[in-house]
């Protein structure tokens, strides 16, 4: 009887600990969210969003456009390379030394702090290739940075495609390429898209790597060889230089919103895949 009571109370304590951990985590998240939005909202208006950042104007429109541009171009560069690598790894490579080297490199790339990417980008793209501080340097650097994410998620999506699909297609006399393009990739589509969106989230929030490679000119870049400041860099500067905390909070709110939208999209897509 006492044993039973003891066991019961032990279970209750563990249960209580688990629940409170969950509540604390959720609480902190909410608190950060509300703190930023509360501080950001007063300064947030259409004029702030849609005006330039020069002279009297303190709008963030150029930064929004630059951010979207950086996201778009990075995706265009990284996705084909990432998907192709994943296809090679899953569908073609036989388990051997080459694959292990590639897998190891991918893991390594994923673990490197972003500031190192920034330094590399600055040395290689900005200086050696002489692209200067530009959208091109920035997006190339970010592409390398998000490649592991895209490769890993695509790999997982491809692996989760049942081998029966491949066998079904091959058994009909379809070629391997056709099997991959028509059956495997479409089946893995939502998994791959989820990976891409996660990558986009990472790009939009990245500061160090883009700050060191795309520069911080607060204007809309009129070409990929021009420098352009993104939202996160803008926020960093506003806060670090102590220019305006209200503007920093307002920018953060916009950034938060962008990340939120991307995450919700990823959720919806991965849910679609499950069903």
């Amino acid at each position, binding site marked *: 009887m006492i044993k039973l009571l003891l066991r019961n109370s032990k279970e209750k304590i563990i249960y209580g600990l688990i629940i409170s951990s969950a509540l604390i985590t959720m609480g902190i998240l909410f608190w950060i969210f509300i703190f930023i939005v509360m501080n950001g909202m007063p300064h947030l208006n259409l004029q702030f969003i849609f005006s330039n950042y020069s002279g009297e104007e303190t709008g963030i429109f150029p930064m929004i456009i630059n951010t979207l541009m950086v996201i778009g171009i990075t995706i265009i560069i990284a996705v084909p390379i990432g998907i192709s690598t994943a296809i090679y790894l899953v569908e073609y490579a036989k388990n051997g030394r080459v694959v292990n080297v590639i897998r190891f490199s991918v893991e390594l790339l994923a673990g490197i702090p972003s500031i190192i990417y920034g330094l590399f980008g600055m040395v290689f793209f900005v200086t050696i290739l002489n692209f200067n501080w530009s959208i091109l340097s920035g997006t190339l650097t970010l592409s390398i940075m998000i490649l592991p994410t895209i490769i890993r998620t695509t790999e997982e999506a491809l692996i989760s495609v*049942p081998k029966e*699909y491949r*066998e*079904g297609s*091959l*058994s*009909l*006399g379809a070629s391997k390429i056709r099997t991959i393009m028509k059956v495997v990739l479409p089946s893995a589509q939502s998994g791959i898209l989820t990976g891409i969106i996660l990558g986009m989230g990472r790009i939009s929030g990245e500061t160090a790597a883009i700050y060191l490679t795309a520069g911080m000119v607060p204007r809309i870049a009129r070409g990929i060889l021009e420098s352009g400041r993104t939202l996160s860099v803008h926020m960093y500067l506003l806060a670090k230089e102590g220019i305006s905390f209200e503007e920093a909070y307002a920018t953060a709110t916009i950034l938060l919103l962008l990340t939120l939208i991307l995450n919700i999209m990823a959720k919806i897509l991965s849910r679609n895949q499950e069903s």
Partner: protein
Amino acid sequence: MESRNVIEIDNLNLFYGDFQALEDINIEIERNKVTALIGPSGCGKSTFLRTLNRMNDLIENTIVKGDVILDGVDIYKEINLLDLRKRVGMVFQKPNPFPMSIYENVAYGPKAHGVKNKAILDKIVEENLKKAALWDEVKNRLDKSAMGLSGGQQQRLCIARALAVEPEIILMDEPTASLDPIATLKIEELINELKKKYSIIIVTHSMQQAGRISDKTAFFLMGEIIEYSDTTKLFSNPQKKKTEDYITGRFG
């Protein structure tokens, strides 16, 4: 005049690396008959089935020795792999329709072999769904996803998909293993119907199923064919002790 045998196999040996999965297989598969392959798990019957459309090629370090002659042509030496698989279709253990529409599933094979004309594709889809006894059930929802069909319907769709490339031989790897008895019966009826036009080779774990649908039965054990004869004879009066022990359940 077509010869009586559709496949003739001479001294087939298959190795996965050092492991010998098939040993000295000699067998003649008759045209327009249902041939059942039975035996305990790991006896090589599925491996054997997969040598007939060279699906084993997908597995690394597979070495095949001996001759597999399909209508006078050695399928390991004298024929393009894709052409072979067009002639030798396959239906798998788990129904595996592609995650696309019913129509696209059936049209997939013909498209892969270069049929582009929509009218011709329409005709192929309808014909083969009819052959697979599925047309009446799906004709109003051809554009709906195949994943919405029941297990038995999915398997019949897979049969229609295999038929659509006009094979001569259909390999079936435990096609009813995941189906309920009613769906199983429908597939068995279908097999009985299909043997008029196709030669069917079926791997099955159910001796009752082999008995119900096949004309000839081969009993595999440890990578060898122990006995191959008319189904009735094999199940009522097997000639080998090992076969008797297996079919009466006094095996091992």
